[in-house]
C-alpha cells in the first residue's frame, strides 16, 4: 500500500494534474474574454459586467469550499495529484469514490486494502478517467446540435424558449431541494430557511434598489441557511 502511494504521488502524475488545472483555467479565461467582448452587443454596460464578475466570486466561495472539504476523503484513497485531476474536472467526490471502488473491484481487490497494488491503482485510474470522458465526449460532439435545436425553437417563439429555460431551472432545483429535504429534519430546516432568506433579501434589494445586496444575496442566504441547519442539530 505504501509503495502504491509513492506512485500515486509521483512527479509525472503531478505534472499531468497541473496540465488539467491549466486547461480548466485557460478555458474559463477564454470564455471570460469572449463574453466581456460580446457584452456591449447585448446591452450590458461595463458596470454590469463588473457586477456579474463580483457576484460570481461571492456566490462561488461557499459552494467551492463545500467541494474542497469533501476532496480530503479522496486524497487518502488515490493520492493528491489524481484527486486534483479528477475533482478539478467533471466528477463529484461521490462519483469518483464510487468509480474508484468499481475500478478496484473489477481488478478483484478492495480499495485501500493490503493487496491494493500499483496495477490495481492503474485499473482504478483507467476506470475513473475513461468513465469521466463520457461527459466530455458527449458535450464536445453534441452541444452544437443542442444549440441548433434551441435556435429553431427560439425562432418560432422566443417567449417559449425563455419559459422553457426558467422552468428547467425550477425543475432542477425543485427536485434537488426536495431530495435534500428528505434527508433529515435539519436538512429540511436548512432548505426552508435558505429559501426564505433569499426571498427576503431579494425583496429588500428590489425595494431599496441596493445593487450590492443583490450581489451578496446567495452568499448571505447560504450562511444563514447553513448556520441555522447546524444550530438545529444542537437542540
Amino acid at each position, binding site marked *: 500500500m505504501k509503495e502504491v502511494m509513492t506512485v500515486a504521488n509521483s512527479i509525472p502524475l503531478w505534472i499531468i494534474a497541473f496540465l488539467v488545472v491549466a486547461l*480548466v483555467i485557460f478555458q474559463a479565461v477564454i470564455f471570460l474574454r469572449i463574453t466581456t467582448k460580446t457584452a456591449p452587443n447585448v446591452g450590458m454596460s461595463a458596470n454590469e459586467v463588473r457586477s456579474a464578475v463580483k457576484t*460570481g466570486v461571492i456566490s462561488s466561495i461557499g459552494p467551492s469550499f463545500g467541494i474542497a472539504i469533501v*476532496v480530503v476523503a479522496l486524497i487518502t484513497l488515490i493520492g493528491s495529484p489524481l484527486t486534483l485531476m479528477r475533482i*478539478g474536472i467533471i466528477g463529484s467526490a461521490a462519483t469518483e469514490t464510487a468509480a474508484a471502488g468499481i475500478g478496484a473491484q473489477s481488478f478483484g481487490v478492495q480499495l485501500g486494502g493490503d493487496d491494493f497494488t500499483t496495477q490495481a491503482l492503474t485499473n482504478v485510474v483507467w476506470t475513473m478517467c475513461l468513465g469521466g470522458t463520457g461527459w466530455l465526449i458527449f458535450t464536445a460532439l453534441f452541444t452544437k446540435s443542442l444549440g441548433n435545436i434551441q435556435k429553431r425553437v427560439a425562432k418560432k417563439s422566443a417567449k417559449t424558449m425563455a419559459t422553457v429555460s426558467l422552468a428547467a431551472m425550477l425543475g432542477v432545483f425543485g427536485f434537488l431541494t426536495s431530495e435534500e429535504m428528505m434527508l433529515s429534519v435539519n436538512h429540511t430546516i436548512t432548505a426552508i430557511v435558505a429559501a426564505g432568506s433569499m426571498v427576503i433579501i431579494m425583496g429588500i434589494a428590489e425595494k431599496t434598489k441596493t445593487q450590492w445586496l443583490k450581489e451578496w*444575496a446567495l452568499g448571505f442566504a447560504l450562511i444563514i441557511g447553513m448556520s441555522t441547519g447546524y444550530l438545529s442539530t444542537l437542540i
Partner: protein
Amino acid sequence: MDTFHHQAHFWGRLTLIGMIIATLMAPFYLSFVLGAHPGWETIIAGLIGYAAFIGVMWVLEPITYYPTLGIAGTYMAFMQGNVANLCLPCSASAQSAVNAETGSRKAEIAGTIGIAVACLVNISAIVVVILSGAYIVSILPPAVEAAFNFVLPAIFGAILGQFAYKTPLYGGIALAIGIIVLFSPIPDTVKIVFAVILTVSVIVLLERRKDKRQEEKSTT
C-alpha cells in the same frame, strides 16, 4: 451574438478535446511508462461497471442542463463538473445581479460570466486545499465543518427561493413535482430528468393558457 456562439463552439470543443487527451495521459503513463498495466480485460470490466452505475448521465445530464446553461455554459460546466451545486447557482445569481430576463441574450452572457468566474474560484480553492495537504480543512473549527454538511440544501433552497420570488406559484409547482417524482417508482438516476420534463411541461402549459386568456381579453 452569432460570433459569440461560433467562438464558444470553437474554444469549447478545442478545450474539451484537449482535456480528454490530458486526463487519459495519467492511465497511459501508469500502464505503459511505469509498466503497471492491469490488462485490458479488467479495464473494460471497470468501464462497464462505471457505465452501468452512471453512464446514462453522460447523455441525460448535458441535455437536461443545456436550456439553463446555454452554449458556453455547457462547455464549461461539463468540463469542470459541479453543475447543480456550483455552476447553475452562480449563473443564476449573476443574471439576477444585472436584472437580466431569464432566457434573454443578456442573461446568457451574464450567466456565462458567472460560471467562468465560479470555475476559477473553485479550481483555486481545490488547488489550495490539496497543495496544503488538507491542512486548511484540518484547522477549521468543528462547528464550521459541521455547518458545511448543510451546504447543499442551503444552495438548492436559496436558488429555488430566488426563482420562486418572482413566480411563487411556479416555485411551489416545481417543489411539489420534485417531491412526487422523488417518491415515484422510477430509477434514481433518471428521476431528475423526469422532474425537469414534468415541470417544463406544466409551466409551458400554464403560460400558454395565460397568453390565451390575455388574447381573449384584448379582443373582447
